[in-house]
């Protein structure tokens, strides 16, 4: 406890950074991921191929390597200068969006083709079909794994600590400079992560349980 009160400022600012990284890259990867999913289910082959290539490449690359690229290699390309924190958000967004894309795509694919055919036969327009038939059903199979992906994103934000961002993963480095007890410090970090992740896990499980029955 004494360690926590001594370093309360450090813990607060570090977890604030973590949550900021999480919020920004969650929004970013939801947008980019949905866009990629749109590409992947589009009737135009070029779009499908582009989406598939991106997803395959990114999903098979370690997140640490994506960070590595944005921290060390990207500045050499002299495109737009970004600081470490922005780099971390971009890296997390690019990485997570590939997984979100797959979740959304497989969710849309769980809706039987007959549903769309029936709504077209009833004369619904594309928007009506999407809004009142396909998406409400797809939601059920998309949201629980989507929450899982976001949990993974929250945990993945710690990787940015290895690349000069002062998030919760970097608490360790600051404590080590002070010669504080790292065992206690890291246990607290782990504890706070459990506190952050558990509600999300419960949310995911209850959604899953409720919706899998209705299907």
């Amino acid at each position, binding site marked *: 406890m004494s360690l926590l009160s001594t370093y309360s400022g450090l813990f607060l600012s570090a977890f604030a950074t973590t949550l900021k990284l999480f919020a920004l890259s969650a929004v970013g990867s939801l947008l980019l991921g949905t866009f990629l999913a749109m590409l992947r289910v589009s009737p135009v082959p070029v779009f499908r191929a582009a989406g598939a290539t991106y997803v395959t490449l990114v*999903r098979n690359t370690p*997140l640490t390597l994506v960070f590595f690229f944005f921290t060390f290699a990207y500045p050499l390309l002299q495109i737009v200068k970004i600081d470490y924190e922005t780099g971390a958000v971009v890296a997390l967004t690019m990485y997570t969006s590939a997984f979100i894309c797959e979740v959304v795509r497989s969710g849309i694919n769980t809706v039987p083709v007959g549903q769309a055919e029936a709504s077209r036969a009833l004369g619904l327009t594309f928007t009506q079909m999407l809004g009142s038939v396909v998406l409400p059903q797809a939601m059920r199979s998309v949201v629980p794994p989507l929450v899982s992906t976001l949990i993974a994103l929250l945990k993945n934000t710690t990787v940015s600590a290895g690349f000069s961002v002062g998030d919760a993963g970097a608490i360790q480095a600051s404590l080590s400079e002070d010669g504080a007890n790292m065992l206690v410090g890291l246990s607290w970090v782990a504890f706070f992560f459990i506190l952050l992740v558990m509600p999300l896990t419960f949310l995911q499980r209850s959604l899953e349980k409720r919706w899998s029955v209705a299907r």
Partner: protein
Amino acid sequence: MSNVLFDVPGPKARFRHQVLAVVGVLGVAGIIGFIGFRFYDSGQFEPKMWEWLQYTTIQEQLLKSVGATLKAFAVGAVCAMVFGAVLAAGKLSEHAFLRGPATFVVEIFRAVPLLIMIFFFYFGLPAIDIKMSQFTAVVLGLTLYNGSVLAEVFRAGVMSLPRGQAEAAYALGMRKTQVMTLVLLPQALRVMLPTIISQLVVLLKDTALGFIINYEELLYYAKFLGGQGQFGRPLVPVTIVVGIIYVIMCLLLTWLAVTLEKRNRRNKKIKTNGTKKLDDVAIPAAAQSL
């Protein structure tokens, strides 16, 4: 092609798709062109930057660091499977005093970020005089985290089997262990193989976290090589080459998963065993671990 969102296109839609295809090609070409131009403009295409690829010493060192990555992967994978099997056995147990702790351990290790666990072993434990090498810390972290995820996968696999399988085995007079090892596990493992292997891909990718605590694996060597002044600090080319190596390694593993899945699908005995239900249980568990 007809899918849930789009009908088979008529002549008008086909024309629209062709227009969109042209736009798409132009867009993709634009992005690739821009990246290529930035590469060219910042001198990444200069022969000097790529020269290092020709040195046999560097090739050997690169192979050696791939070996270090694969070593962490292999040891971590085996340990995680064993640990996962033990935890799954605990979670499936009829005794609450086994089920409780196993569930607790799985929940804890799945909620703590892997990097924090690795830090805990490498930086935290020396406080109570337990010192370990970077390799051990990475492998231990990989084992605990992926073991917990795999435990959930194994459990979901066993649960997805029709109840009649276990009932029939009990009716034949088998004991609990026999029912599990002879009847349930062989079937569950076959159904779960694709999920298990995609978890192993995650494990392979996570070995790269060793870079952060200076375990001398592929990414660590990449940074060393990228800093070499005599090759003009080829960070960009090195990142690309290392990225390709990772993608190839993971794709080989994924390919294995797909091949196994295809072989499974041909086997009619398994096909009927409620694979649909399995998807519901298994995918969220696996999706949590990217």
